[in-house]
């Protein structure tokens, strides 16, 4: 995936340079799947061309951070919360609070024992 992505990027960049036809410096930073493109040279056309540089940010983020939940999981979780009634949501929040409190107490106990 990463190789495929960088190959696409290279060909796109070559295309950009060819289109512009003038010396242009482009630096690409990939941070958490997001691609930031900084450019030097006053070529407004370049801005339009760089919009085609799209590598699925979700795929990139999932690849870099395996701990990330997938997009499908996010959608499912959001839908689940939306489907709960007001009372159910309130009681779930209350339970989460109680469980957090329980974890806090356990931590305090461990510290005391330690």
């Amino acid at each position: 995936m990463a190789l495929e992505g960088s190959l696409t990027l290279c060909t796109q960049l070559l295309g950009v340079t060819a289109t512009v036809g003038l010396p242009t410096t482009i630096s690409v930073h990939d941070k958490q799947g997001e691609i930031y493109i900084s450019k030097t040279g006053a070529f407004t056309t370049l801005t339009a061309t760089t919009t085609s540089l799209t590598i699925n940010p979700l795929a990139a983020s999932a690849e870099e951070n395996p701990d990330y939940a997938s997009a499908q999981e996010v959608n499912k979780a959001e839908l689940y919360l939306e489907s709960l009634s007001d009372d159910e949501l309130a009681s779930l929040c209350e339970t989460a609070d109680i469980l957090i409190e329980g974890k806090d107490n356990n931590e305090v106990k461990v510290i005391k024992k330690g």
Partner: protein
Amino acid sequence: MKKDRVLTKEEYNKRIKRCERLGAKQFAKIVKKVERLKFKVMKKVFPNYTKRVNKLFDRREEKLLKRCKTEEERKKIKEEIALQKMLNKREDNYEMNRNYHVFRHRFSELLNYLNYNKAVHLRGMIIDTVALPILTTLSFTNPIFIPLVALDLVSLAVNFECVNLQNYHIYRFEKNKDIIERKEQRAIKRTQENYTEGVKVINKVIELDDKTISDTERLQRIETNKEELIKLKELILKEKERRTSTRKAIAEASRTKKIGGVS
């Protein structure tokens, strides 16, 4: 071949204007009013509607599971039924039909519904068109069929306006597809980055295959750490906020309309 061609923005604009000329905007207002009325009536007349529908889903699930041969098929059916239940409950909570409203920037989800809806109303239009000459001929032989002709004409008009409205929304979506999809991905990514632990807890709760226990009991049964629970709470609070703001917006919209109507 023509269908596969990507339309230009100007062509989309033309089509959108054509839909507007055919009454899409006015019909959308009627649809919204009918929607509000539907939920009001449902909550008064059938307060246990969601529970009953859930029971129907359970029965359907049982039937479908009996036919399954592999474990994968069983899993798929269970997931599908759970999804349908959640969608149904969401409609009830927000008092919004899934066919006409975007939930949390999930535009692609709405596009699927729009296309599905369009297909349903197109089928209706074809049936009405076929029935119209038959009923008209029959009405000459017996006056009993005259009201049926009138009903068929009304149904034809409604189906036509529905298809027109779906087209209006589809064109508007497809015109700005790239921007909308990017927005959708950004929204998902934001949740991934900020609440991934909370999302994972919810998915564990959903996957716990025991219908007899409540959601809170499910949460107590699964293994969680403090970080995950904090993120889960944040997600719940965010959902609560969204719900109140949506309800406020709906109430304000109807209030301003009422004031407008009086003056």
